[in-house]
């Protein structure tokens, strides 16, 4: 097979794009770029083409590189929603593969413009995450030059460890809590009194206390840990707060991709299959090898296997979209695409018929490593598929209190998570956080027997 010839790819891409528009895909235009696979490995490790430096990315990079060089993982494209969207294609791939990938990326781009989670982020942050991430990286490089690698690394250790601990329902630019409690019984609270300040015979409005009491911080359990620390740390420098907010911004950017993975990959796969099927201008041989690539990626198990202990999101999403379009039509599919995330998608649209057709099951693995089929109950299957996605895939940990001496009190919501934290890693994270928070940090969770445990990170001990 020949390598991608650029002019041919340009031509195919232009015609596929025209076809996509004719078929009603709506998206911000995509800047495609051909990149060597070494760079793709890097993007896969960092999540962004230019991102802040940290040794943990180096570790991911080397894992990715090893997997890549052993042939376990092949990256076809990386696509970043935005305006314009950015997509990187592997320059060494065949023309057929890259033609397929162009169609796939257009599917992603359509999804990103229309899905509510993606468009919410787009509204909050604008369409230039790559430039923003690069700016974060440069600011951090500057900080390293100014205060030294060790100091910046300590902040990144803490901030990146808390990466998924953001409140994804909050705004990107979030104000501090109100300083004072709302005044109880204030006249303005009552729309009736507002209109008729003085009614004949009414009592004089009770004089509100001059200074309403200070509101406790936080006023409610706060799950937006990165934001809270950046806002309320008493002893952090401004550049340290900026790093926390930079990590938070990138984390919020990744959330729609995380929370819509099945839908998004499925949607893109649905569209690449459909666009290629209808692209009668493509030579037959190219179509065949492209569709071969499709079936290598969008498949339930590795070749030669009969079962898989994971559900391939490409395959599941693709099958679900085909199913929905077949049963309810494309308009319904578009509506689902706009309104759902993976939770709603799987719970509302994975039906018994499809689950049986796909052969989905739940399994259980005991501590000895033995894995058994647990059953084929639809609800359990749905919950098992979405279970790793709750709360951004991280334990639910909230700030419950900020003491007067600056102690940060964290509480793990072990009741919703079903069990306690791994104490060893929790202790290390507390250590990271304590280094930048600089005051004591406490964490409440439970141990293996369900007994409550308090961890403390404090330099005095």
């Amino acid at each position: 097979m020949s390598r991608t010839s650029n002019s041919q790819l340009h031509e195919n891409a232009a015609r596929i794009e025209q076809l996509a528009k004719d078929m009603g895909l709506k998206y911000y235009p995509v800047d495609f770029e051909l990149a060597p696979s070494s760079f793709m490995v890097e993007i896969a490790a960092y999540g962004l083409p230019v991102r802040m430096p940290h040794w943990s990315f180096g570790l991911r990079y080397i894992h990715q590189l090893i997997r890549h060089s052993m042939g376990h993982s092949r990256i076809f494209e990386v696509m970043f929603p935005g305006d314009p969207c950015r997509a990187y294609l592997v320059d060494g791939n065949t023309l057929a593969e890259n033609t397929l990938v162009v169609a796939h990326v257009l599917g992603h781009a359509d999804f990103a413009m229309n899905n509510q989670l993606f468009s919410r982020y787009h509204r909050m942050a604008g369409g230039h995450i790559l430039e923003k991430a690069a700016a974060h990286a440069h600011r951090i490089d500057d900080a390293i030059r100014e205060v030294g690698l060790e100091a910046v690394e300590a902040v990144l250790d803490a901030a990146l460890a808390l990466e998924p601990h953001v409140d994804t329902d909050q705004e990107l630019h979030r104000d501090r809590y109100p300083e004072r409690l709302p005044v109880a019984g204030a006249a303005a609270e009552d729309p009736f009194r507002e209109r008729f300040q003085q009614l004949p015979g009414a009592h004089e409005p009770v004089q509100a206390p001059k200074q309403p009491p200070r509101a406790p911080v936080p006023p409610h359990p706060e799950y937006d840990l990165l934001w809270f620390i950046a806002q309320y740390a008493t002893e952090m420098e401004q550049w340290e707060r900026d790093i926390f907010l930079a990590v938070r911004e990138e984390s919020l950017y990744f959330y729609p991709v995380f929370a819509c993975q099945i839908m998004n990959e499925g949607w893109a796969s649905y569209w690449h299959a459909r666009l290629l099927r209808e692209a009668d201008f493509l030579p037959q041989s190219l179509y065949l090898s492209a569709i071969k690539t499709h079936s290598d990626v969008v498949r339930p198990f590795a070749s030669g296997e009969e079962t898989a202990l994971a559900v391939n999101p490409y395959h599941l999403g693709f099958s679900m979209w085909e199913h929905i379009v077949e049963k309810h039509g494309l308009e319904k599919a578009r509506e689902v695409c706009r309104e759902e995330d993976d939770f709603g998608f799987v719970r509302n649209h994975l039906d018994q018929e499809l689950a049986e057709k796909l052969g989905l099951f739940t399994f259980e693995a005991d501590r000895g490593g033995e894995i058994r089929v647990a059953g084929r109950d639809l609800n359990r299957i749905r919950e098992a598929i979405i279970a790793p996605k709750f709360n951004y895939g991280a334990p639910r940990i909230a700030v419950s209190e900020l003491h007067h001496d600056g102690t940060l009190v964290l509480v793990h919501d072990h009741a919703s998570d079903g069990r306690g934290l791994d104490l060893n890693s929790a202790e290390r994270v507390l250590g990271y956080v304590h280094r930048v928070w600089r005051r004591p940090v406490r964490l409440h969770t439970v141990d293996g027997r369900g007994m409550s445990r308090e961890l403390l990170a404090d330099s005095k001990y």
Partner: protein
Amino acid sequence: MTEPSDASMRFSRIAAETPWYELFSRGARDWLRHNQKVREAVKSSLPELLSGSDILSKPSNNRTVLVPVRMLQHARFRLRAAETESGAGQGKGEQGDVLRPADAQQGEPGSGQGGTGEGEFTFVVELKVDDILDWLWSELKLPDLKPKHSASLDDPDLMREGWDKRGARSRLDRRRTLKEAVKRRAIQDGNATPFTNDDLRFRQLVKRRRPALNAVVVFALDVSGSMGELERRLAKLFFFFALQGIRRQYTKVETVFLAHTVEAWEFPEEQFFQVSGSGGTMSSTVFRLASEVLQARYDPSRYNAYLFYASDGENASEDREAAVQALEELAGKLNYAGYAEVGRSGMRPHPTEINEMFHELERKGFPAAAALVERQEDVWQAIRTFFQDQAEEAA
């Protein structure tokens, strides 16, 4: 902000190549930083790591040591491992079918954590023995050794210095000569002579005196019946680091390996630690042999001589006089004599015979010291004692 309808009017493009990323790999940079952190972690726990690993096997041949380390992990909050993990799968199978038998991944669930898909692999750091010693020396705050201050120790040395227009033909510097010719021809007209006598340049030699940087280290080991496996291992570790410490300082270090029971023999290095004898201990024999070896092969005017002696401290009482005398005679030839008493001291009289002898030597003003090495950790203390002491003596 662009409206969707508006956006749809615009078309995507495939960029011309802008391969900035081929010049710089963030991944490689951060990976190097990870490795640097691993090295720092290794460094801080070096003494434990070294005493645990088998670094003494063939250290001199390949001058590097392989230390297996785990990759650093960037911790995040995560839940403790569940009794039973569950998930969704796809394929054939009835309820209760075993998809994977228990032994397929034995041990992994037991360790409970770590491998969350990222895969858990340790990697091996290759450390240079010299680097280790640099770290150790700075960790233990050890001073560098001082060669003997003695005029007789100065080697005359011929060194190159400067050039002259005359000299022996063998010292003609052709490169310089050619340069001179080129310079001359550059300012002359086209048909200048290729070379003239004035172009010739000869290297000049001068005589310099420099301190002798040769050292000989005599390792003496008691191999009598009372020296068990533990004692030998401690002695070996002690000798190894003493030797490495001396190697840091001298360009050329020769070693002599002597073992003794009631007699003393010289051994090649490979056999030295395998030797075992039986019966009593007469240390005078090994001191005398050391003196002879130094006398015969290592001219004291050209060599800095060190003795390291390891024993369990026992010595036959009838040998006492002879040993003291032999040791004193030997100490006169030495820059330094170090004694490590290896093994558990609980059983022995304290101070032991030999310990007493070295203390006596120290009191008489000879450069000498004794240390107890009961466990591996003590080796560092012993090394520190010797090297600090030695530096003070020499100063």
